[in-house]
């Protein structure tokens, strides 16, 4: 016997066992939640783009530079330590006469 209805048609037919108000209400709830999720996703996308691109312009270069200076300072201190021993690292002002002595 040939099947004269698809699975989707069968399922739609089956929904008729529920009363009409329940069907329309659940349909509206599903539609609403789909639209809500879509909207929320779009909003999240654009707001995170605005936030991160603005932060990349406003703060990223500044943070990079601050980190770089700190790294440089650390590097200098390490160099001083290697050159003059561990106790010379603390007193920066001691460095010139000692360096001259070497």
């Amino acid at each position, binding site marked *: 016997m040939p099947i004269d209805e698809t699975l989707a048609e069968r399922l739609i037919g089956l929904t008729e066992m529920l009363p009409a108000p329940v069907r329309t209400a659940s349909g509206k709830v599903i539609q609403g939640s789909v639209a809500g999720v879509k909207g929320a996703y779009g909003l999240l996308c654009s707001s995170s783009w605005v936030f991160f*691109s*603005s932060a990349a*312009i406003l703060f990223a270069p*500044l943070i990079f530079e601050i980190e770089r200076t700190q790294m440089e300072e650390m590097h200098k201190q390490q160099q001083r330590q290697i050159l003059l021993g561990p106790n010379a690292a603390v007193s920066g002002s001691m460095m010139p006469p000692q360096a001259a002595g070497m």
Partner: protein
Amino acid sequence: MASSTPPAPAAAPTEDKAAKPVLENPGSMDELHKACKDVFPVNFEGAKIMVNKGLSNHFQISHTLNMSSVTPSGYRFGATYVGTKQFSPTEAFPVLLGDIDPSGNLNANIIHQFSEQVRCKFVAQVQNSKFMASQFSADYRGRDFTSSLTMANIDLINDTGVIVGHYLQSVTPRVALGAELAYQYGAQVPGGQIAILSVAGKYKAPSYTVSGTVGAAGAHLCYWQKSSDQIQFGCELETNLRMQEAVGSVGYQVDLPKANLVFRGTVDSNWTVGAVLEKKLQPLPFTFALSGMLNHPKSQFRLGCGLIIG
């Protein structure tokens, strides 16, 4: 007070004078919002190379190359002469400033301080071998007030021009009040002439400044705050009643002397975000500048990169 101490009457006038706060010069009207404006970045687009060369103590020349996809690219040559007349250790007069591009478009400035009080400035702009703009202004700086008169684009033949008068007076050590009267006459002005009056005020505390100008055409309010040695904030609100628009913006400036860095950023209510980074490449006489500006509603991004040598 005089009755409690009999010998006081002789001393009273001097005491009164000492008790009366010393009013300082409030600065000129053009510099009313300067502290706040300086915090905001000046964005540019494309690549910019500038070479400054001092020929002597008083004479300096500069070459500027501008490469951009928005504004026309080009070369400008500039020259500065600074004279020998000095009233303060930082400034010397007369100052002659000019820059010119190969097609002959010229901007020229002459600034001269004739005495402790009087300073004059002349600005001229020549474009396509025509005087596009000329402006003459004279400032008088009193002990506690500044008045200035500016005449712009005065054309005697066609009978057009703009005259602007400023007066700014220190009322208390912190408060300065002033007014501006702008008068324009000419055939293209409706009614032949128009005058616009606006009032200005400034409150200056050690760590913050509030300044504002209110007139018939709109209002302009500025707030500047110094949070620490390194961080300054600026807040600006500009309304234009004729265009029916108001723009608010917040800016900040971070100075990092250790890294030879100045960073300025701004966000405004048109969703425009901009920042300029200026770094001195210390052992070399170079300054590197990087500018980025992003407008969210238009999805427009402008990147600028500059190198100043000397």
